[in-house]
């Protein structure tokens, strides 16, 4: 008689496994069907709604973010199965530093824990061959988090199957300003040494040479784009922001000029397969229209 609870537990464990396998199989079939149409190359996520989720479920303060992390892992698995090559996530904004110090500290601790876990052998990074980039003003982070981030970037430098860009201490306006500053420094520092003033009369050929030189000294679009931290990935095709808020909150402003924007009402820890599939179907619908227009040109 004492074996009965044990047997029931084993049976339910077995049924659970079987169900998971069935779900996994049907999900992969669904993905095969969706892949008949165009699949986005780059997906961006704004993971909004963790605190509201914690309040809704009556959990303590930090656990909303933990639930959010599990939702993130799930989304990454789906993206990998679909064959999406680049995934960007908005982990922490520079504006978020203005929150309560306890919350910021707990977020930093959580991020340190999760970044360190990426280095372990069983993490998804090695399982799926993910190359990780940390994008943002890393100087604003504390030393431990920064060191861990750099370690992960070096450890995954050789992976190439999927690229994960984690935006931490990031603001799109800050990114653009850093790019401008870098372009200025690159273009003009060597000119500062070389700028003697020409006292003699300029002949025609010298004026021409100076013109070309002046053109090279001017900032071009390609200079700014090269110096943007997000230049390691193409522009996102879809941007998904959970929790129903319809704003960009200073995320990838330069890059999302032509991206499809999706705003599912679900909070980030509640996000699931159906939201991803809906976003991709919408992308496919407008993608064919956009491609048709491009062909007309």
């Amino acid at each position, binding site marked *: 008689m004492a074996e009965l609870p044990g047997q029931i537990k084993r049976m339910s464990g077995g049924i659970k496994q079987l169900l998971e396998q069935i779900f996994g199989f049907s999900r992969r079939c669904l993905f095969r069907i969706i892949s008949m149409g165009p699949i986005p190359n780059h997906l961006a996520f704004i993971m909004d709604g963790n605190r509201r989720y914690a309040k809704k479920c009556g959990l303590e303060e930090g656990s909303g973010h933990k639930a959010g992390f599990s939702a993130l892992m799930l989304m990454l698995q789906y993206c990998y199965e679909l064959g999406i090559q680049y995934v960007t996530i908005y982990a922490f904004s520079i504006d978020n530093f203005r*929150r309560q110090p306890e919350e910021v500290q707990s977020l930093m601790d959580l991020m340190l824990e999760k970044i360190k876990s990426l280095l372990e052998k069983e993490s998804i990074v090695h399982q799926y061959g993910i190359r990780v980039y940390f994008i943002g003003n890393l100087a604003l982070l504390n030393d431990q988090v920064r060191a861990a981030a750099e370690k992960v970037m070096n450890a995954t430098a050789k992976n190439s199957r999927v690229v994960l860009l984690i935006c931490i201490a990031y603001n799109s306006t800050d990114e653009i300003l850093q790019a401008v500053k870098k372009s200025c420094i690159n273009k003009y520092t060597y000119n500062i040494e070389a700028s003697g003033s020409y006292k003699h009369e300029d002949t025609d050929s010298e004026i021409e040479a100076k013109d070309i030189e002046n053109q090279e000294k*001017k900032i071009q679009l390609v200079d700014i784009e090269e110096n943007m931290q997000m230049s390691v990935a193409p522009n996102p095709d879809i941007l998904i922001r959970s929790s129903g808020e319809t704003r960009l*909150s200073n995320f990838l402003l330069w890059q999302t*000029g032509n991206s499809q924007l999706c705003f599912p009402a679900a909070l980030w820890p509640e996000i699931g397969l159906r939201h991803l599939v809906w976003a991709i179907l919408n992308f496919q619908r407008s993608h064919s229209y956009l491609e048709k227009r491009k062909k007309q040109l």
Partner: protein
Amino acid sequence: MLSLFSVVFTFLALFLLIPGLFISRRLRLHFSLKNIIRFYKITASKYGDERNDERPMGEKEKRAKNRMPKHVAVILDGNRRWAEKRGLGTSDGHEAGVKRLMENAKDCFAMGTNTISLFAFSTENWERPEDEVNCLMALFKKHFKSEMPYFQRDKIKISVIGNRAKISQSLLGLIEEVEEATKSYEGKQLIIAIDYSGRFDILQACKNLATKVKDGLIQVEDIDEKAMENELMTKCSEFPNPDLLIRTSGEQRISNFFLWQSAYTELYFPNVLWPDFGEAEYLDALTWYQQRQRRFGRRV
């Protein structure tokens, strides 16, 4: 019994029927209870804003004060689809769109918005068929001329932003004339984006900053968000960043309109085509905006 009935009837007439008829005539709205209540809500919040200036405000009241958007940006999408649905030509669609634009602008200003930005023509639109582009340019010319007296009467400042290199001389002359005539007005501004691209805007601002660094006017360390905002084309406005961005026709994209400026803008995507976007739809957008909780990254 009869007196009670007459009292109730007078009350209803005074507060509902007559103002309702007046409001719906003025705003060309459908005469319905929903629209009347919407109008009262919006005017009440506007009146509440003015009254709140006189007494010290609590935290909640401070938040309620910011409920009317100071700057509304609109992407006018859907003219061609509207014309196709009715079996008309593209030029008729654009004509209807511009007419709707002028009506909506008048109503928006009446409801208390300071700045309205319109995405009239994007840099990518040059790639459309030539006759469509010519028709659009002709429409701009026609309406700048015909609406000038209205702008002067209502004291609306007009600014046109965008890359002026490809615009014809006649249109350019007209634009400069309108800007010159209205440049001293304050309080209401209409920003029209012709041949505008968000990326081009940021790029030209970056180039200006880089030139200033090269000429030694500023240091590299001085380049910050304020410096950038002073170089972007929206520097002509007191409120360069839109609070609300409306894109009609259901497409959920920004299509290279305000990129830097819409960092914290609330985005609204109604499923209606632009020539059908009237007062009722705008009231919907305002009501939706007022329910938003804008946190700017912090906790409320």
